[in-house]
């Protein structure tokens, strides 16, 4: 009987040590993640691939991405239109996400170079019920539009923050989406997405090409107006 009790005691002791060891390992993993800038306090897009492609397929993308309606941190109501012959970069950020900090800081730079044609940067945060409105108001860079709209997160299937969606205003389509840990990386991916959208035959900014405009004006190959230096209007000679 005594032997059994001793063995049981030893087993309990070993199991206790094992549990403490596991807890310590877990704590070390958490610290390592924290040092790497990965927050585990909220859903995060860290696991999402650092690529940009026409990925979101939520309800808002059928028939074109819908305009963003929401609130301004510490302010009123706002609606942001996504139309126009320009791109719109939606940056889905949170106030508490550690990785997002780099983007809040990058977007405060008034000289920020955003890829695309006349690209407008819009920061989309969660509704005040899901994020700190006062902290968002603090973080909001001057001159950059920020909208709290959880509906937009849902409609574009945003997996977490940070996450980026590039929209072509002319077609109201998503030409790229994804995430990364720094602005330089995101910028590179956006450059690629804009180039790729052009390669697919879609003019990135939705503007007609020079050829389109000339054709619409009735000016085709060989038209005399293309050769103003030719006093006789002899286009053949001018072309040679």
């Amino acid at each position, binding site marked *: 009987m005594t032997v059994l009790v001793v063995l049981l005691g030893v087993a309990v002791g070993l199991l206790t040590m094992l549990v403490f060891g596991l807890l310590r390992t877990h704590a070390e993993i958490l610290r390592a993640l924290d040092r790497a800038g990965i927050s585990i306090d909220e859903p995060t897009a860290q696991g999402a691939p650092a690529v940009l492609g026409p990925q979101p397929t939520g309800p808002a993308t059928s028939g074109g991405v*819908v*305009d963003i*309606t929401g609130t*301004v*941190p*510490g*302010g*009123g*109501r*706002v*609606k*942001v*239109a996504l*139309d*126009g012959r*320009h791109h719109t970069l939606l940056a889905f950020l949170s106030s508490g996400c550690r990785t997002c900090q780099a983007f809040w800081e990058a977007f405060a730079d008034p000289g920020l170079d955003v890829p695309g044609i006349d690209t*407008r940067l819009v920061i989309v945060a969660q509704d005040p019920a899901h994020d700190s409105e006062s902290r968002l108001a603090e973080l*909001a860079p*001057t*001159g*950059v*539009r*920020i909208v709290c709209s959880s509906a937009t997160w849902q409609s574009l299937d945003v997996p977490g923050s940070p996450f980026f969606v590039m929209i072509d205003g002319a077609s109201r389509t998503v030409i790229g989406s994804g995430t990364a840990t720094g602005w330089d990386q995101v910028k590179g991916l956006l450059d690629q997405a804009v180039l790729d959208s052009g390669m697919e035959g879609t003019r990135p900014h939705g503007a007609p090409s020079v050829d389109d405009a000339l054709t619409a004006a009735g000016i085709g190959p060989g038209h005399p107006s293309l050769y103003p230096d030719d006093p006789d209007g002899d286009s053949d000679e001018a072309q040679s």
Partner: protein
Amino acid sequence: MSDELTLDGVSVAVPRGWEAELGYFTQPHPESDDMADGRSFSTLHGGGKRVLLHLANFALPTVRGDYGSGAVEMMDGGSVFIALLEWDRASVDDKLFARVGLPTELRTDDFNPNGLQRRLPGQAGAQRFFQSGGRAFGLYVVLGSYRRRDVLVPEVNRLLRTIRID
């Protein structure tokens, strides 16, 4: 398809492609458009709780004046900017606000280049004052092109009809 914004008894059904911001401002009187402090529209809240609505068919910059300075400079010939500004409720008995109800049938000859708070080449503006529900309001509209007013004014009226003041 439209999205409705509502604040303090003022609502607007914003059509697709149009932008809007509905908030409050704190100036004692919406008379100037001084942007010297570089404030954002979104910070204009609290105080006397006077409503300020901006509507535009172009991208509204976040930093702009009550009468659209900072935004009107970005307008092209097809652009429209509309500002609805609430005044002190005590002003409602002033003769200036004698008209009852938001004007929704502006005419092309209501607009002229001298009607702008800040004159910009090619643009035209119009301003009206009225009262609704015991509240005093000013309406200020800028057309990106005076020459295209025949096309733009009906568009303005279409938007004005989407605004409700309860």
